[in-house]
């Protein structure tokens, strides 16, 4: 149990770093889009590639933070019914719920890997006023999905061993 807690904590540190990267990207996109709008409006001189860079940044922003959101228990769930269950049954359905999450996102990560490899093989480019390879973004999507699948698996094991997941308290309050 101790080892598992330690593993979850260090995994959490990795996820927070990914989240910070996503956060910095969000801030950078804000600056880029504002600069582009102002330059276009005032000097009629937009920044080339704003659209392409912004649209390629969004998958990074989302997929680098998916697993962190799960760690914090912030993905929406309904506890209206399960909160009335006895503790062992409650834990059982929670473990199943986490395993289902791991299953879905492991499948999605596998699909994402296929897609990224295909993109890499053909050297796919983001096309527009500027060009750059798009496959790194697709690998990031795979990476984020895999991180989330692992987080679900860790949560399932942790919960099965009697650990309390983040967001449980909030759920009970509702």
């Amino acid at each position, binding site marked *: 149990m101790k080892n598992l807690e330690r593993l979850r904590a260090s995994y959490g540190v990795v996820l927070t770093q990914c989240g910070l990267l996503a956060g910095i990207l*969000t801030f950078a996109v*804000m600056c880029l889009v504002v600069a582009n709008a102002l330059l276009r409006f005032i000097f009629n001189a937009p920044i080339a590639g704003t659209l392409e860079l912004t649209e390629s940044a*969004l*998958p990074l922003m*989302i997929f680098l933070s998916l697993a962190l959101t799960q760690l914090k228990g912030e*993905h929406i769930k309904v506890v209206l019914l399960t909160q009335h269950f006895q503790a062992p049954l409650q834990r059982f359905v929670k473990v199943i719920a986490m395993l289902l999450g791991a299953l879905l996102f492991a499948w999605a990560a596998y699909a994402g890997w296929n*897609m990224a490899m295909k993109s890499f093989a053909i050297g796919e480019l983001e096309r527009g006023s500027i060009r750059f390879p798009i496959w790194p973004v697709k690998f990031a999507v795979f990476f984020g999905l895999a991180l989330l699948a692992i987080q679900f698996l860790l949560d399932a094991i942790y919960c099965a061993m009697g650990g309390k997941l983040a967001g449980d308290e909030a759920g009970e309050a509702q």
Partner: protein
Amino acid sequence: MSSLSIGMLGVVALFGTILLGVNVMVALGLVGAFGLASLVGFNAATAILGTVFFDTTHSFHFSVIPLFLLMGFFAMRAGLGEDLFEATTKWLGNLRGGLAISTTLGAAAFGAASGSSVGTATVFTKLALPQMLDRGYDKSLASASIAIAGTLAVMIPPSALVVVYGILTDSSIGSLLIAGFIPGVVFSIVLCIAIWLTVFRNPKLAPLQHQHFTLREKLASLRLAGPLVLVIIVIVAGLYLGIFTPTEAGAIGAAFTFFLAIIRHRGLKGVELKKTLLETIRTSAMIFAILICALLFSKFLALSGVANAVGGYLTGLEVNRWVIVVLVSLIYLALGMMMDAPALLAITLPITHPVMMSLGFDPIWFGIFVVLLVEIGAVTPPVGINCFVVQAASEGRVRLEQIFRGLVPFVLAGFAMLILLCLFPQIALFLPETMR
């Protein structure tokens, strides 16, 4: 098994898993993915799974969601709620029920910037509730007026929830954002009238107390509140006139509230940039995860033919289309008592949207109508999320039953607003139809 029965089974499985506490995104995604696999085979389903995650997020227009959220979190950090409340009480506090009316209008403006119903309710509970109770306001009236005022946040642009509707239904995000403006303002006024009438019938609920403020004091209260209202107007006007796109509006709004936060804290330190950014990306991830999984589920439903079958059945019924509207409204009110707004939109729109379209309703109008419904659901028991938020933030000053009791006139006001929207769809459609 026919496609249709697979589809029906999928809908049952969705509700079953959600009720058993499976994350809404996982339920949507699993049922969608396995449903697709049973209809078109594992390989085709995997291919769809691979593309939907990337394609949905690889979009300039959808970047508007994290930017609106960023704007909201900066607005909270900047403590703009305080300024707005101070300004509205100085200008309107002496009216009958003035503090509650000030709260409603302050929350409307703050909600516009924050886009968060729950966030707005929290902030105004802390600011306005103690003041109202000190002045002898009835606990039910005071707390309920805050709970309902929070809901104005998702209607008045910029609003991330409206964008969620736009993505799920493939409707114009710009038009939807603009469409929420007049209904949001009208609903604020309807709520103020409801407060005024409640207090008019029973003046004991809100004792009058005259406080005199000089014009200079009144103008000084607009220091930060004024610029915020101004930036909201700039955003709405800019979208309406086609000067910038919703994504640009989000970025400009976020940058502006960021500067207001820096001014408020006299530097970067108090803004807690790291924490704000992490909050923003976690909420964005939560919304997009639901969106993507909902799109997967919606592909499955469309392919199975369930969406068409339900639509065909309902349009085939020889009843007035408004009967269907009432039916749909009841479904939203019932489900709105169970889950948060983005999840609710995600699981219902794949069915309700095609039905409403086949009945000839306007997609933009329906968006505003649904958002209003979802928000009424957010204050009705047993899971009126805003009421819990107000109760939690009140630090024991009010009880949940008191809030629910006080909500009766405001829920009625909500219904009045729904009827207004049905009678005069132009309230929502005038701006988008005339925008450039």
